[in-house]
């Protein structure tokens, strides 16, 4: 709120306060005591080399190195309790200050593209290395080594993450107007450094109590990168001189998806932490028709069907059942972003270097949500077993080029969400599956009063673009 941690206005105003349910619990007095610093200095080095080694072989090699100095944390905690305001700059374990981390990452790759007669082969290998250079408690059930009688929990270094990602792609013309291709590859992706290191000082759990949740989700410097193994097969055909057809089949196997697990400590308290818990797979196909410009008209039509599923098992339930020697009951359910049908249509009327008028139509079938029946214990039915409504959006774009004082310019006008749709796979109420109403309006009154749950309304943009450089 204020730059200076010792600003006297903190003392005068006090902590943010609401008066009962007045104005949906809005803050009516005080100031926000939250103070947070995140600062990252990265030293990045990259080098790459591309060489046409022979007539058939083109080789690429490269290396990337990054050393980061990351600072996360609270540069001073204010707690205003009773009549006194307490200030702590760096008072671990309860009020740790800003923490500094120095992770190192390294990547190297080599690729060879072979063009032999009509056959094209692209093969490569990428090596990735990440060392968070952080630490974690050796026994997560005794996170701050402060539980009397429990096994000792020492601080252990995070492990180095090494991965090798092979990739190969082959394309081959089968007739004069058509070709096929397939590709196979491994891809690794680390979560953002912010997610890894945020709140990753486990010593704050020294006084953890059952039933309380004062600590948020703890970070995890020992997180593994998400791994995707992707298979793709495609077919391209020029149906006529002006019409092309593409068909793609894809399958992705995703491991080590990020998630949150709840860890139960030896004193039966619980805390949440970031971890790799989930796996999923995506399969589907895309069919696209591309119509090259005839006169002033050009268009594309693309349809995708996909099914994205992942495991779903309440970590708490899993732990309890595992302790009892029972099957933890993992099951596959649609992932949150499982949009089965996607249709994109673009129609454009244009004259090169004169004008362009385009309409973009996007249709998306409903993504999953978890329905509820009533509002009591166990009201939710199977996770992601409901479907949100379908959504349709239309955008218009127009551009007219002209010259003014010898400077090339263009006037543009854009309309986003032409039909003022209020919904496109956004927030819905679990009791109805609708974005507009709930069967428990008293419980949901804050969300009902929040207009940001709707899709942004129609928006116009007009402007002038100068195309020349000075």
């Amino acid at each position, binding site marked *: 709120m204020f730059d200076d941690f010792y600003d006297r206005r903190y003392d005068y105003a006090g902590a943010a306060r609401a008066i009962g349910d007045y104005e949906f619990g809005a803050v009516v007095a005080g100031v926000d005591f939250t103070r947070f610093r995140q600062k990252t200095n990265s030293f990045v080095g990259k080098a790459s080399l591309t060489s046409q080694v022979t007539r058939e072989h083109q080789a690429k090699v490269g290396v990337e190195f990054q050393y980061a100095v990351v600072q996360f944390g609270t540069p001073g905690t204010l707690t205003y309790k009773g009549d006194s305001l307490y200030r702590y700059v760096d008072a671990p374990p*309860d009020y740790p200050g800003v923490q500094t981390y120095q992770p190192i990452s390294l990547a190297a790759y080599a690729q060879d593209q072979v063009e032999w007669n009509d056959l094209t082969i692209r093969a490569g290998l990428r090596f990735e290395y990440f060392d968070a250079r952080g630490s974690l408690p050796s026994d997560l059930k005794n996170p701050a080594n402060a539980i009397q009688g*429990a*096994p000792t929990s020492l601080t252990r270094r995070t492990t180095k993450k090494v991965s090798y990602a092979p990739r190969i792609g082959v394309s081959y013309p089968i007739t004069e107007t058509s070709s096929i291709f397939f590709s196979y590859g491994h891809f690794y992706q680390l979560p953002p450094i912010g997610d890894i290191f945020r709140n990753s000082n486990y010593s704050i759990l020294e*006084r953890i*109590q059952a039933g309380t949740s004062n600590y948020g989700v703890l970070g995890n410097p020992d997180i593994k990168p998400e791994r995707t193994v992707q298979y793709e097969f495609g077919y391209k055909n020029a149906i006529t001189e002006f019409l092309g057809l593409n068909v793609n089949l894809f399958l992705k196997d995703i491991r080590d998806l990020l998630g949150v697990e709840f860890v139960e400590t*030896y*004193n039966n308290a619980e805390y949440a932490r970031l971890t790799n818990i989930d796996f999923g797979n995506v399969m589907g196909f895309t069919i696209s028709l591309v119509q090259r410009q005839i006169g002033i008209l050009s268009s594309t039509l693309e349809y995708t069907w996909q099914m994205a599923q992942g495991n779903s098992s309440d970590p708490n339930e899993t732990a309890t059942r595992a302790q009892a020697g029972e099957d933890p009951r993992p099951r596959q359910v649609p992932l949150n972003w499982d949009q089965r049908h996607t249709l994109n249509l673009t129609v454009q009327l244009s004259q090169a270097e004169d004008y362009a008028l385009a309409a973009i139509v996007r249709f998306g079938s409903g993504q999953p949500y*978890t329905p509820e029946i009533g509002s009591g214990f166990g009201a939710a039915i199977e996770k992601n077993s409901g479907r949100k409504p379908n959504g349709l959006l239309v955008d218009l774009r127009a551009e007219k080029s002209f010259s003014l004082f010898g400077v090339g310019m263009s006037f543009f006008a854009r309309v986003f969400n032409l039909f003022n749709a209020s919904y496109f796979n956004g927030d819905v109420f679990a009791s109805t599956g609708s974005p507009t109403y709930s069967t428990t309006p008293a419980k949901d009154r804050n969300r009902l009063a929040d207009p940001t749950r709707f899709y942004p309304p129609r928006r116009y943009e007009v402007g002038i673009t100068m195309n020349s450089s000075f």
Partner: protein
Amino acid sequence: MNRLRVWIALAVSVAPLIAAWGQLPPPVPKEKRGRTDAERSGFHDANNIRTIFWNYGMVGDYPRDPINVDLSVFHSVEVPKGSGLNYSDGITPFVLAKIHITPTDSFYIMETGYRERQQQHPRLPIDMRYEPRPGYFEADPTINRGRSPAISNDPRTWPRT
């Protein structure tokens, strides 16, 4: 002589305080006082009732995610046992004391052992509620695998000393 009078007056005035101090019960040694890391939960499972209980003073509980709770593993005063019918949130005694500051002035303090809405410690990020004293259950989780407070029908939960 004057100094002697001062000492006598001081002794006479302090004597009742010393006598009163002597009548107070000795304070619990620090290592035996209630502490957060001694919190444990167990299951009472008898007389057709099944319920979780906590040694910080609460019988029953409220699930972390009540909408998605699995009633095959969460039991809070479930009657009859196995029915999935939980009859209560957490139950805890309220202990209220009236403190006399002077013969005409007094105030009340109250404490309980509940899972939420407790007074926060003035400086530490903890709830101020009853906390269990150590030594009344087996703290070693390799022996007390359920990490339960001592319960009569399970010797693994009994303290060794």
